């Protein structure tokens, strides 16, 4: 079975006009413009098999949208090769796009002034979907996303959550095998977010739809993706499972303790001195945090503290959240972070 998406040494360079300062500069620009080359995507390679849900994350300007646009056939790559669903996207665009669905969270693909259903009807014609297929598909999608009473309302009268659900239907009417989602949950409330996530999981399970999504909401990733590709400054700095990302970058687990008395930090440190990598941090109001590396048994660490006779009122276990991990990776900078991640693979 051929992979859904194959990307090899993909690069995209933009020529950006540089405006000189001041009036004199503007006048000089009139005659001779200066251009700066900006490379948004720097020779990235990856392969996504059919039926996978893959998260594509990175900070703003890391090159996520540029990549997605190249995969969807909107932009022509500067160099490298792309094959999506067996096509070179930009070269055979009109035949290719029947196989994909695209949702840009920030932009609408529906007609603003007419009922949603009219937009769907037009899309049916554009994609040349047979009437019977269209009916079946629409019924299924409308039921899943509970759109029943919205269909006759014009898009401008829908809430963002309602609109986004309609956008999903619009992108799926022609039953694409690959779905590209660029920030599908941006600005939505938690209820709609959950609904959309559940919908996507079911779509993937029942129709085998391959999904590639960019997001800033890491809960999307946790709920949906088995795989994450992390981008920084146009380069891939991580490509693999979400669990691996967590274990490799996690600073271990934390035990938060609330004491009934003032306990000196030295005393606590002495308790766990024989556990390699365990560290303490004192908090306010007689609390302290014990960090335990992944390879140390959690109950061993706890036994040492509890058995020491210190007055403990409350214990909380925390795991480093994906949010924290990702923030950590961004903060650590691209180059060194990349070496650390790639070297460890």
């Amino acid at each position, binding site marked *: 079975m051929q992979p859904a998406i194959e990307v090899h040494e993909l690069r995209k360079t*933009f020529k950006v006009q540089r405006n000189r300062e001041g009036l004199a500069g503007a006048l000089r620009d009139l005659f001779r413009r200066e251009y700066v080359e900006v490379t948004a995507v720097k020779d990235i390679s990856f392969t996504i098999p059919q039926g996978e849900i893959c998260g594509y994350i990175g900070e703003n300007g890391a090159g996520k*949208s*540029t990549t997605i*646009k190249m995969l*969807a*056939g*909107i*932009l*022509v790559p500067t160099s490298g090769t792309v094959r999506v669903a067996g096509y070179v996207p*930009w070269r055979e*665009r*009109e*035949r290719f*796009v*029947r196989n*994909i669905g*695209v949702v*840009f969270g*920030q*932009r609408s*693909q529906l*007609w603003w*002034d*007419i009922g949603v259903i*009219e937009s769907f*009807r*037009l899309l049916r*014609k*554009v*994609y*040349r979907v047979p009437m019977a297929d269209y009916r079946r598909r629409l019924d299924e999608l409308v039921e899943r996303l509970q759109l029943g009473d919205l269909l006759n309302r014009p898009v401008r009268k829908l809430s963002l959550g309602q609109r986004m659900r309609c956008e999903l239907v619009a992108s799926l009417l022609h039953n694409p095998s690959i779905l590209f989602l*660029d920030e599908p949950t941006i600005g939505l409330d938690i209820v709609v977010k959950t609904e959309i996530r559940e919908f996507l999981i079911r779509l993937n399970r029942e129709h085998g739809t391959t999904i590639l999504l960019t997001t800033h909401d890491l809960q999307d990733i946790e709920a949906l993706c088995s795989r994450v590709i992390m981008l920084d400054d146009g380069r891939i700095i991580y490509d693999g499972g979400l669990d691996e990302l967590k274990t490799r970058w996690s600073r271990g687990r934390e035990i938060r303790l609330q004491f009934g008395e003032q306990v000196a930090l030295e005393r606590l440190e002495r308790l766990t001195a024989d556990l390699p990598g365990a560290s303490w941090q004192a908090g306010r109001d007689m609390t302290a945090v014990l960090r335990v590396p992944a390879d140390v048994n959690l109950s061993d660490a706890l036994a040492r503290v509890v058995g020491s006779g210190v007055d403990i009122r409350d214990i909380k276990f925390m795991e480093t959240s994906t949010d924290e991990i990702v923030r950590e990776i961004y903060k650590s900078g691209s180059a060194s972070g990349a070496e650390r991640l790639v070297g460890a693979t």
Partner: protein
Amino acid sequence: MMFYLGLMWEYFKNYAKTRLTYRADFWIEVVSDLAFQAINLIVILIAFRHTPTLGGWTEAEVVFVFGYFMVPYGIFSCFFDLWNFSERYIVKGEMDRVLTRPAHNLFQILLENMYPPGLIGSFVGLVIMAVTARQMGMTFDWTDLVMLLVLTAGAVMVYFGLYTALTAIGFFTDAPTGILPLMFNLQSYGRYPVTIYNRTMRFVLTWLLPFAFVGVYPASYFLERSGAADLRMALLTPAVGLVFTAIGLVVWNIGVKRYRGAGS
């Protein structure tokens, strides 16, 4: 082909539905369009108050050419309303959406911006032609009707090719250019007989920006005054239309490859 005709109908229906919600706007647009053409006609009529002929053309002949000019122009303005292309599709990035749909991108954009009231101008033009033709005692047979279709198609293609190429400039620079309004002014020269202009202007209007082929050249096919040379120019209309349409599409397709999307 059937697919695109079907799409045209669907887009038209959506246009109608949208427009019916803003009925007042619709009539204002129609009326202002016709008023604009009426003023141009009045200018011609006033000019002939002062002189019996203009460069050897009688009033009826000039008005006939004016009427003909309105026919392809009406069709063109119905299907080619892209004056805000650069802003809407390039700067705001709506081209992204167009490029992810399985129909030719230029065709989709033309349909999305369809402006059917433009066709009313074509009908008015036909009426003006009929009235002046009667004044001049011209006779029409079925070959004239066929020629009218062929020549109008050619003239529409001249418009289409030229404006497609000019609109495609939006792909190459994001700064707005004043070229489109300039063109729009220049094209109105096509509705007067080219013989009234000097040689340079005549050359420009014939070969470089062939607006003479959207008005006076094809119209003179029908006029009794035309000699062999005029007929030759008239019959050249479809050829010029094809050449310019080809140029327009090539420039457009190069432009689409250079499209870089709006940051989101």
